[in-house]
Structures are given as C-alpha cells and as structure tokens.
C-alpha cells in the first residue's frame, strides 16, 4: 500500500513538473507568476508614460532591466527569445527617452 502511495506521489510530481515546463507565461491572468516575471511586468508597465518619467527614475528602470537580463537568459529557448525581445524594447525605450531628456537639459 505504501509503495502504491509513493508511486502515485512520484507520478503526480513528475506530471506537474513536465506540465510546468511547456506552460506559457502567466502574468496578468494572475496564476503562477514567477518572481522575475513580476519584476518584468512592473518595470515594463511604464512604457506608456515614459516621457513623463524623471531622469532618475528612467535610470533606475534601465538598471532594473539590466538586472533582469541574466534571469531571462536562464529561461528555456522560446521563452528566452520572446522575453529578450520584450525586455530589449522596453529598455530601449527608456534609454531613448533618457537620452532625449538629457539632451534637452543641456
């Protein structure tokens, strides 16, 4: 009986691990959000009003993007490809606005 329970537990654990590997990211739907993705969502949710963000905040957002990069590098192939591009666009915009603001300041 014990053996059967143990086997059942192993099978359940293996199935859930396997399912998790291919699962698409879940962020705004609110289920099983990983920590890096929470950070990604928070950092890249400000692209809409990038022009109204202060220079200091833009610098901080760029730093946060850079800190996310190594975590995205560790993702499986497809997910990495998608999120590298998304992070690149988000960081690129902040850097672009920052450069524009710094030029205006001079």
């Amino acid at each position, binding site marked *: 009986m014990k053996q059967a329970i143990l086997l059942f537990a192993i099978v359940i654990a293996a199935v859930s691990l396997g399912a998790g590997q*291919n699962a698409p990211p879940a*962020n*705004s*739907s609110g289920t099983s959000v990983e920590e890096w993705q929470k950070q990604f969502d928070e950092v890249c949710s400000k692209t*809409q009003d990038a022009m109204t963000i202060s220079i200091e905040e833009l610098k901080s957002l760029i730093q946060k993007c850079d800190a996310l990069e190594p975590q995205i590098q560790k993702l499986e192939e497809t997910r990495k*490809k998608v999120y590298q*591009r998304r992070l690149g666009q988000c960081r*690129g*915009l902040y*850097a672009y606005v920052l450069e524009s603001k710094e030029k205006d300041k001079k």
Partner: protein
Amino acid sequence: MKRIVLLAATLALVLPALSSDEGAVKKRRPLPYEYGRVVLNSYSEKSALAPVVFDHWRHRAKFSCRVCHVDIGFAMKAGATGINAADNIRGYYCGTCHNGKSVFDGKTLFQSCSKTLTDEDRMRCERCHSYGQTDRGDADFLRFAQALPRERFGNGLDWQQAEELGIIHPADFVPGISIKRKSLTIQQDFALSPKLQGMPDIIFSHKKHTVWNGCELCHPEIFVGVKRGTTRYSMVGIFEGKYCGVCHNTVAFPLTDCQRCHSKPMQAEAKE
C-alpha cells in the same frame, strides 16, 4: 566614328540597367487582399511543408499592432523572428492564441502546430502552410471588406476610420501575455518639412500611431534619433523599407498615398 560613339552611349545607358536587379524587374502591385501578406519559410520547406502565408488583414481588425509585435514578440521584419513549430507548440508566437483552447468571438481558435500528424492535422496545417495552394484570401477578404470604409491604395480600406466608426475593435490586451499599463500619455503632433519645394509638410500624428503601436514598437528600433532634425529621412530610404517604410508599404497604407502624410495645407503664395 559617329556609330562607335552612338554604340558606346547606348551601352553606357543599357549596361547599368541590365546589371542592376532593381532596374530589370518591375514589382507587381499587390491586389487588395494580398497587401500586407507575409510568407514565412524559415523552416517550412525544410520540413516538407508549404511556406506559411500570413495575411495581416485577418488579424489587424482584431488586435492592435502592439499585441503581436511587442507583447507576443513578433519581429517587424518578415522572417526575423525565426518561428518554428516547437515555439508554437510551447504556446508562444502563433501558439499564444492558436492553441486549440483560446476562444475569440465565440470561436475556439485552431491549434497552430502539433507533434502528431493525422489526416485531420494535415488539413489544419494547411490553413497556414498554404503558399502555392488554392488561395482562399480573395473571397474571404471581399466578405470581410464589405462593411469597411474604402481607401484608394493598399488593402483599399481605411483602417483608421473603421476603428473611429466603431466597425473594428482591435484589442490591445491579451490575458496572460500583455502587461496592464496605464492609459497612454499622447505626445504632440509635429510637422516635418520635405526637401522637395512645393510639397506640403508632413504632419506626423503621435496619437494616430501610438493608439495601435504604443511607444516601444517605433522607438528606438525604427526611429533611432532622439532629437528632431538629427536624422535625415529620405523617400529613397523610406521606399527601401526604412523608417516609415517599415510599415507604410508593407501593411499600413502605402507610400503612393502621398497626401495622407503630406497633409499640411499649402499657404497661398503672397501676391506681389
């Protein structure tokens, strides 16, 4: 002597045209239902499948450009994403929505790729892997276009007006993929003066562009210069697919529709 000069002059004119591909081949103007069509063949033929035919018109009535080119991660250049079946099976790119589970407009969206290959699967594969096969686009497009306002070029449809009139409702959010963002801070419109004298100024509307694209789709990938006037745009570059030409000549209204950009009314010349 005259003959030799004439022959040399003729050769001088003809040879450069023959040696240049651009000079020798005239592109066929796409039909309305073909405009915005992208053929993807990074891996299809290598896998004994027909290349994928993607018609932008089928999707742009339902989703903003940003949903696909920012949130889902499709590159702006055809083939640059390098999508493969495994990506779709994992639930990314086409597989984000085309997964056999997502429901849109009351219909379950077909699964884009799968590991199995039955006869039924093959029919499903051919919905996208359809290059060189019977083109259903014409009839589907005519049916779709009936209710939409007309334009002269491209798809022959005024997409912007279609949205303003509430005929189409492109979604800007896909649950589980898109980030919840604040409403957009719209930047002011500005005018650009063309190099050609007598050509009306270009009125660039941030509002019109950011509604569908957001900011990060264009900056800095397409428009790098941060200070207005530092990048010298030319129609040659734009026709080659740079700057405005990334979208306007491929998906959005084409460059032949001059007055939609060169839209500032000309001032009457002062009378002497």
